[in-house]
């Protein structure tokens, strides 16, 4: 306290023991010291027990095991992997599989969730009711149950490879997964890619020019047609000019299985479907509350300015709703990423299933394996929330 009535400095006053006992500062220090002692003892005894237990069971420690040969196969690999490679490589394969399902899942769940959230607010009673039935059903069922239902209840009851279901575009669906033609790029692909990049660059340029004109004059030139021309036409011309360097490898029915083409594993489909449908129900609720949080006057003002329903939504309501939506949406993205670890229950080779499952069983090095696995998820969570905080800050800045 700084003022004329400053109390006499403590040094001049003699203090008895009871002063110390009732002094909040002293109490705090003593309490913290006690907690620190307890913590040291607790951690120390855990370490001691662990070392003794590991010795008794003859388990090695340290991270050297990462360089050992893995010796097991993984059913879905995004990078080259054989069973003669190291545990570190297997870890990487698992991590990439986790990231794949998380990224695709987040993308799909966002689309489905926004759709259902907006549908729930629809003026059409039937559509709104259907959306709320979806939300109330899926939110109250464990995600693991949904994974099982999709995997064992649907995908595993599909026909065997011999009588696969034929889908359009020479795709096949059977109990081993979804087969579709694999594109094979020939020589001259670079020309096509160049066309694509140039088209994209042109669209960006066009957008900024249109925006500048809008800010300067208030007239918004239509960019849709030239943009479509740039982004579709230019690559197409380049494609034809390069002599159509694209061929497809079609899946062919072999004796027991389909051969060739690209395969999406049923485990991946089940995990993706389960995570998407489950998370979408939560995202829908977030979107709904975000839109409801935008004041009614905003809509009315927009309508008074002569904007039509689509413009009101796109230009007025959604940008303001996003501010409310983004923080909880981040949580849902993190939840989806963490829930992707449920893969271990249906055998999709994600990080937990490959590393904390198979590698742990083979090496018995529980402490190291679990620590590595947990740190990866911690890091992922941290990165996602950092990114979303940055995005959130950008959206929030729009406010005047």
């Amino acid at each position, binding site marked *: 306290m700084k003022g004329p009535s400053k109390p006499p400095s403590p040094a001049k006053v003699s203090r008895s023991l009871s002063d110390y006992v009732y002094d909040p500062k002293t109490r705090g220090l003593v309490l913290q010291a006690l907690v620190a002692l307890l913590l040291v003892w607790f951690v120390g005894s855990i370490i001691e027990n662990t070392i003794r237990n590991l010795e008794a069971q003859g388990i090695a420690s340290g991270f050297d095991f990462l360089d050992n040969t893995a010796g097991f196969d993984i059913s879905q690999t995004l990078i080259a992997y054989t069973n003669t490679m190291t545990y570190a490589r297997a870890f990487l394969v698992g991590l990439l599989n986790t990231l794949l399902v998380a990224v695709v899942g987040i993308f799909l769940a966002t689309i489905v969730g926004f759709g259902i959230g907006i549908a729930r607010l629809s003026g059409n009673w039937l559509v709104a009711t259907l959306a709320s039935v979806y939300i109330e059903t899926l939110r*109250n*069922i464990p995600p693991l149950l949904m994974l099982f239902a999709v995997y064992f209840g649907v995908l595993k009851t599909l026909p065997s490879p011999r009588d696969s279901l034929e889908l359009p575009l020479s795709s096949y669906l059977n109990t081993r997964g979804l087969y579709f033609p694999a594109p094979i790029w020939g020589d001259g692909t670079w020309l096509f890619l160049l066309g694509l990049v140039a088209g994209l660059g042109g669209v960006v340029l066009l957008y900024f020019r249109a925006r500048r004109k809008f800010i300067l004059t208030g007239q918004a030139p239509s960019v849709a047609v030239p943009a479509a021309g740039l982004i579709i036409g230019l690559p197409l011309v380049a494609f034809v000019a390069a002599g159509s360097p694209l061929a497809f490898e079609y899946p062919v029915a072999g004796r027991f299985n389909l051969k060739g083409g690209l395969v999406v594993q049923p485990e991946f489909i089940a995990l993706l479907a389960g995570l998407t449908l489950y998370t979408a129900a939560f995202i829908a609720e977030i979107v709904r509350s975000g839109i409801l949080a935008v004041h009614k006057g905003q809509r009315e003002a927009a309508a008074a300015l002569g904007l039509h329903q689509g413009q009101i939504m796109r230009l007025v309501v959604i940008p303001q709703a996003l501010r409310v939506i983004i923080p909880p949406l981040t949580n849902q993205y993190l939840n989806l990423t963490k829930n992707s670890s449920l893969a271990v229950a249906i055998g999709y080779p994600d990080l937990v299933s490959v590393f904390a499952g198979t590698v742990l069983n083979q090496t018995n090095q529980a402490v190291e394996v679990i620590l590595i696995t947990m740190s990866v998820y911690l890091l992922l969570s941290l990165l996602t929330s950092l990114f979303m905080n940055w995005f959130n800050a950008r959206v929030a800045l729009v406010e005047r």
Partner: protein
Amino acid sequence: MAVNSEPRKGPPQRNSIGIAQWVQENLFGSVGNSILTLFGLSFSVWLVWSVVDWAILRAVFTGSDGSACRIEGAGACWPFVVHKFQLFMYGRYPVEEIWRVNLTYVLALAGLIPLMLPGIPGKLWLSIYMLVVFPVIAFFLLTGAEWFGLPNVETEKWGGLLVTLVVACVGIAASFPLGIILALARRSELPLIKWLAIFFIEFVRGVPLVTVLFFASVMLPLFLPENVTFDKLLRALIGVALFSAAYLAEVVRGGLQAIPRGQFEAADALGLGYPQKMGFIVLPQALKLVIPGIVNSFIALFKDTSLVLIIGVFDLLGIVQQGISSDAKWFSPQTAATGYVFAAFVFWLFCFGMSRYSAWLETRLDTGHKN
């Protein structure tokens, strides 16, 4: 229109309109709306029809094994659920001891229902019964007490809904006080305590429950002295409780932050100590504010109990899954779907019930201080 002199109680009534006008306004307001309605209608009809067709019309209701369900075009295989009902509910709990589980349920309901319904006196005694007396009785009833003539039943034999409820209830009971302590610690002015709480909460919230369960299942045994061993169920319980406590702590912290400074200062001015300040002034207000969040955490915990099957504890989902995948006698194309629909329905019933209860409680406890 007759004049109603009696003042009506309750919220103001909506303007009532005729059915035809309601349909016109809400379903066929414009061309786009009409198209949407027609789409929605055909989808709903298709959905309801497929469910009724599968669950009733084409379903198999009788049979002592899966052979009846194996015929072409059969729907749900209900005998699977009927025959395994006891397994799904109690796991492999000895049949002659099942009354003990049922008695535990009755004792729990006897305390819980009057506690949950407002207007029933003696809440304090009921709380003491539920928090102190009941857990002790339930523990001895379920695990056994030789000195009382109740044979021991190892937790290995527990399963099904029993395990789901035990994990959920113990998880809730343990994580609630733990979550409050963590939240208070995180708001503490003592740096060491604050940072310990932050570290614990953020660590647990950053990792999936599956890894926490793996941790509890393979690392906890290493942490303990050699002669101490843990039951598998207990390890799962520790994992679930720690996990849930971290989430609950954040919910409670939200409530603590919403309490105005004046309340803390007023408590200080009255000379209340820290426990009194928190226990009498701050927490009652803060917890009331975050009832929806707390119930959401409990619902999440209830759903998360299904994950214990990954470390080999058979809860409702685990035992249904086991019945589907490893019992050749019941194998049929629709067994899996039937089992999952049954399990989903049970989970849904509990979670939906909890969310309705919380919504109702929220309106009841609303003292009009919001906004």
